[in-house]
């Protein structure tokens, strides 16, 4: 019997490590510990994240036949004994929750949560490195590129650029006798996206294998993974994976005896969203400030150390082994005409079942959010979904039937981006969302080009004054004008897409902007300066609100409804926070 504890970052944060420790302790009591976590016939292992983060920690029990016998969810340390004793049936995953997974089609996440990411043997047992062997022993680099072309694989990092095209350009680039580089962009910077982290934590070898295949295709012998420093677990697991792959001879010199050398090293980023942009990433790899450079020349011609360089995203690489092993056509069987394969989305926000979701491209948004994600938390109304992070936009509920593919999503004004889907309900203020993203881009702008550096700041200031109730007639138009010019005039993708969250919210929620500016009212009752608090008849006179009010604005007799002196109220919300009876009304 095998017991597997899901230990991605979400799982760990939910207490998975404690659960594992509790299980280990109990097992040790029973049968004595063995160094590799094997306890008298029961092995205790860890895996990455299976994806249903909202149920963490997850503990899977496999029978001796290797099949999954039971999946326990919300398996905290206190329940470890019950799990071992078989008295934790209440923790067994419900059919409904199981459907979260069964409705997906998993290519990228094929191993996530199932294999131990720290054991190359498990990856190999699941068919790992077969694609690399196939590529090196049976295919020319051109054939590899052709296969990727047939698959129709497009960059999963955001722009959706055809992968084969980049590989082909890098392959044909003149390295002038010098090196070529294969770079993995694992600087997952979009706030609200965590697909790459999960892949790196749950199935690091898939990325290594994809990189090696790509390296072979373009003629590179050196790979670099640029990974966020905020992902310590991912870095650890990558380090382990690289060491094991080298030991196994699937990385390093003379791979599979074919004479092909390919090594991979890790570079930890240091916290700069803009380094997701290729040229900025390269500057950062070179130890410089991560400021984008003008293109052309493109990295395929002059990249890392001015040598031909190809950069792909984690998820893109993770798809490659499947494409090579199963053939491009098998991959292209999923998705739409122009957007092939599957895409991993990170469902978060006001969603009932948040987590990682991998679905064929083209599935309607509604199916992802309601079908898989279970709809909105706490029975609130679905308002919008934000896709593509700071470069993307907000898609309103009315467009919930939009298929998730590159073209359709772009048409809405948002982008597929790296796959973050932040779901919003009626309590989310759309002007504030725009402000939030502009605050982000303003901080993350590298400061080089003026449209981005000053323009995003000015847009932010306008949005700030709108949310503070100081919006002026003409502000919406000024935002639109600035947005257009920043898109047109910025140096890199960060600036060129920074206005998108503003433009889409204006496009779909112009009424909310107008409500703020002209009525001095926040439609979602969110913006502090524009809300008023009132106490309803539901008040029982417990006095808690009055006691917690910092300005003494609330008065009333014990056991009688209280009232708020609006002149004294500073809108801190402490009354609402402290009211146990829901008697404080925010308007």
């Amino acid at each position, binding site marked *: 019997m095998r017991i597997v504890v899901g230990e991605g970052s979400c799982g760990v944060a939910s207490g998975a490590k404690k659960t594992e420790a509790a299980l280990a302790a109990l097992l040790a009591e029973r049968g004595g510990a063995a160094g590799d976590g094997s306890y008298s016939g029961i092995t205790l292992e860890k895996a990455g994240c299976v994806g249903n983060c909202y149920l963490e920690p997850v503990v899977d029990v496999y029978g001796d036949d290797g099949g999954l016998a039971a999946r326990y969810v919300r398996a905290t340390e206190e329940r470890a004994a019950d799990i071992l004793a078989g008295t934790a049936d209440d923790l067994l995953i419900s059919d409904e929750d199981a459907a979260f997974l069964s409705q997906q089609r998993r290519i990228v996440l094929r191993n996530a949560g199932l294999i131990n990411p720290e054991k190359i043997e498990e990856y190999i047992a699941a068919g790992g490195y077969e694609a690399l062997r196939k590529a090196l022993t049976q295919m020319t680099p051109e054939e590899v590129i052709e296969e990727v072309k047939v698959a129709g694989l497009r960059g999963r990092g955001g722009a959706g650029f055809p992968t084969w095209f980049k590989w082909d350009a890098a392959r044909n680039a003149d390295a002038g006798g010098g090196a070529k580089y294969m770079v993995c962009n694992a600087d997952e910077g979009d706030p609200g996206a965590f697909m790459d982290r999960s892949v790196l934590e749950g199935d690091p070898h898939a990325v290594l294998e994809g990189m090696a295949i790509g390296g072979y295709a373009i003629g590179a012998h050196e790979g670099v993974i640029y990974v966020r420093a905020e992902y310590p677990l991912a870095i650890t697991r990558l380090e382990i994976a690289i060491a094991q792959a080298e030991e196994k001879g699937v990385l390093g010199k003379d791979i599979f005896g074919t004479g092909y050398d390919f090594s991979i090293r890790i570079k930890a980023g240091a916290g*700069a969203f803009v380094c997701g942009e290729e040229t900025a990433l390269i500057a950062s790899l070179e130890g410089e*400030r991560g400021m984008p*450079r*003008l293109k*052309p020349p493109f990295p395929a011609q002059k990249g890392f150390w001015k040598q031909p360089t190809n950069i792909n995203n984690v998820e893109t690489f993770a798809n490659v082994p499947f494409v090579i092993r199963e053939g491009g056509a098998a991959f292209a069987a999923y998705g739409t005409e122009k957007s092939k394969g599957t895409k991993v989305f990170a469902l978060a926000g006001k969603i009932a079942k948040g987590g990682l979701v991998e679905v064929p491209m083209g599935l309607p948004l509604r199916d992802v959010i309601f079908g898989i994600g279970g709809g909105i938390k706490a029975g609130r109304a679905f308002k919008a979904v934000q896709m593509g992070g700071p470069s993307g936009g907000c898609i309103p509920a009315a467009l919930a039937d939009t298929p998730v593919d590159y073209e359709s999503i772009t048409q809405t004004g948002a982008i597929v981006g790296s796959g973050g889907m932040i779901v919003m309900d009626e309590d989310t203020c759309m002007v504030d969302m725009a402000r939030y993203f502009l605050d982000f881009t*303003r*901080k*993350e*702008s*590298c*400061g*080089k*080009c*003026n*449209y981005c*550096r*000053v*323009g*995003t*700041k*000015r847009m932010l*200031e306008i949005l700030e004054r709108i949310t503070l109730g100081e919006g002026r007639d003409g502000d919406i138009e*000024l935002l639109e*004008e*600035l947005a257009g*010019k920043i898109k*047109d*005039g*910025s*140096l890199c993708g960060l600036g060129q897409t920074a206005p998108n969250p503003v433009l889409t919210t204006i496009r779909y929620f112009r009424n909310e902007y107008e409500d703020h500016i002209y009525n001095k009212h926040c439609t979602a009752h969110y913006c502090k300066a524009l809300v008023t608090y009132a106490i309803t008849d539901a008040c029982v006179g417990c006095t808690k609100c009055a006691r917690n009010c910092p300005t003494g604005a609330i008065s009333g007799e014990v056991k009688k409804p209280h009232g708020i002196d609006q002149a004294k109220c500073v809108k801190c919300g402490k009354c609402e926070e402290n009211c146990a009876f829901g008697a404080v009304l925010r308007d």
Partner: protein
Amino acid sequence: MASINVTIDGKQVSVNSGATLLDAARAAGVDIPTLCYDERTEIYGSCGLCVVEVEGNPKLVKACSTVAADGNVVHTDTARVIESRKTMLELLLSNHVGDCRPPCVQACPAHTDCQGYVGLMALGKTREALELIKEKIPLPASIGRVCPHPCEQECRRGLVEEPVAIAYIKRFCGDWALGLQPGADAGGRQDAAPTNGIAADNECRGGLQPPADSGKSVGIVGAGPYGLSLAYFLRRMGHAVTVYEAMPHAGGMLRYGIPEYRLPKAVVDAEAAGIEAMGVTFRYGTKVGAPEAGGGTVTLDELRGAHDAVCLGIGAWVSTGTGADGEDLPGVVGGIDFLREVVQADGIPDFRGKNVAVVGGGNTAMDACRTAVRLGAENVYNIYRRTKAEMPADLIEIEEAEEEGVVFKNLTNPIRYEAGADGRVCRAVLQVMELGEPDASGRRSPVPVEGKTETIDVDTVILAVGQAVDAAGIAADLELTRKGGVAYDSATFRTSLPGVFCGGDCGNDKISIAVEAIADAKHSSGVIDAFLRGEDAPYRAPYIVERTDVTERTFEDRERECRPPMGVLAPDVRKGSFDEVVAGWTEADAAKEGARCLECGCGDFFECRLYRYANEYDVKPERFAGAYSVSPDDAATLNPSDDGHPFIVREEGKCILCGLCVRVCEEVCGVSALGLVGRGFDTAVKPEMEKPLAESGCVACGQCVAACPTGALQERLPLAKSVPLETEKREAVCEFCGAGCRLVIEECAGLFVKANPARTEDGRLGPICVLGKFGYGTGGAESAGGRLVLRSVAGMPPLHGGGGADPLAAVKAKAASLGSVSFEDAFRTIGEAYRAQGV
């Protein structure tokens, strides 16, 4: 190398393949603006000004980095390109802290370069100061005496103790040109009297030698400040000018509206004579107007027939009253009428033993009061409905009037005038007033105190409350304003009649001070000149960046130093005489006063590319007003980032993050004393580790200063007064070592101002080191005969020890061996530079 063909704005040009669109545009002679491009450094692309449209490409592309392709059709002047550039500039300017021009210049309606001439005066350059004034004000001796000097109101020296006496300095320069010497008893000083006569004035720039005759002629109606100044400017442009004046002498209100004791007629005459000497024709006693409407001696149509353009500057010669009963009584006269009569009748009427009331609170009222005093009046009352603090007259006029015995009846307003037995006015009944609530403008408006009046006996009442224009008689078809002034377009100065222009008090109901009329003359002269060439060039006030945050605190640490004393006639003496009250300064006093200037205006004004582009693109950055990345609070002093550097001054608030200094310092000089710090909106350029620049690895080659497109990096000039000046440039070879670096030497007024690296044949800036860049010039002395002299820096050892063995022998030898030199070959630090000289 293969060549390709590119079409830019319709011009075809052939360039080598690999050339950028910017290269191609330059080859085609099409100007593409850029603030971050330098041939010597790697393409950076931060400013985004160089965007253009390429046919077939949906995006705007940056010309500096886009390699031209054969057959490219490029447009640099589409609405989209211009809009993008304009907004870019507006965003930059919305985060730009500084004063392009000092507040004095901005306050002057004519934008006279006050800081410039005050600075030149401080440097002892009287002639050049005068020339600079006359660029904007052709009548400096007159205006220097009578101008209420709005410049001084805004002068920040006033935040220290008292404003720089800009007007007095102007008067000195004007007097100097006329050969007038300061009054003999001017504070008991007897400095060497200037000897240059009026001829000296005519030697000035644009004086006797106007450019080649344009073949065009202009008729100007009115020889007041507008007409005289316009004649001066147009004549300088080569046009034939005739001035038609109804009165027997030139000067207009300067002559007939301002008393002798403030502005002697001789001064006005002398200045007008200077203009006449330039070849301007004057026709006195010639009134323009339709004969049937009241007796003009020449019609406007006749003038239009005789000239290519006609300009109306007839002034505002009608006195208005307050509407009180009895204003039409004999003995009630208009203020300017009174003053004019006094001039024309040479001191008559005789007011001895009489009571005179003057109504009004402006300078004309004060002029009337003080003239009445001088005519012997027993009592002179000034009647004004607010308090002294609200009087529009200059404070000094009020004070001097008071000294001369004028009785101020503030907070009174005439209700009616009553006649005596002889039918003449004999009493004035005044309503007593008090100040009420502040009105919309913030001024407390006077309200009557119910039932409270006061009566005074008067023999004469002078109404100096306002003026109006009498333009009705000029021509029937000339469009007038509702109030009867000439109507014209304020940007083109065009009236309703083709070829007829207008300026000064007579137009658009803007009766104002003389310098305002002179500003009109300056601005309209350009418009008229263009018109004569068949072009249209409306006047547009330049856009400038100003600081509004400067307070007393800004100058806390300044040493207090008041103006040199000005000699004035004692009240007892002046009461009985029309002699000029103010004596005027000596050259030494004027120079000393000039040194008090705080140098508010940007030293980079004449080179700033941001300013240039801002005006080319007609920016309106106010719409993006927001926070500054360098807080003006941090930049509270006028030289914010004092790094203690002997040669270089940083003003972070003016930095536009083009990165040129950082890149040049690294890529050209190999020093990296400056670096980019932080990111996002708050990104800044700072010396390493945010240390003072002097403590960084800076080798003071000055390349950063030469590269900086704005005033963020400036140099300390080797002048006692660091005044922004337009310079004349010449090339020279640096004499410090054998490298033979070519320099561009900038000079002004015979003073060495600065040296910069010259451009090489391929357009790049050449090498320079601390010696070439900062080694020349001597604290204000002339660069005699064009030869460069070595400079010493206050507080620092001299760069050139002089005498004995050549202290730079080692440098020269090394340079010779290298063939050329860049600074890093010579020294690593400034200290080393000095040590190399054996200091």
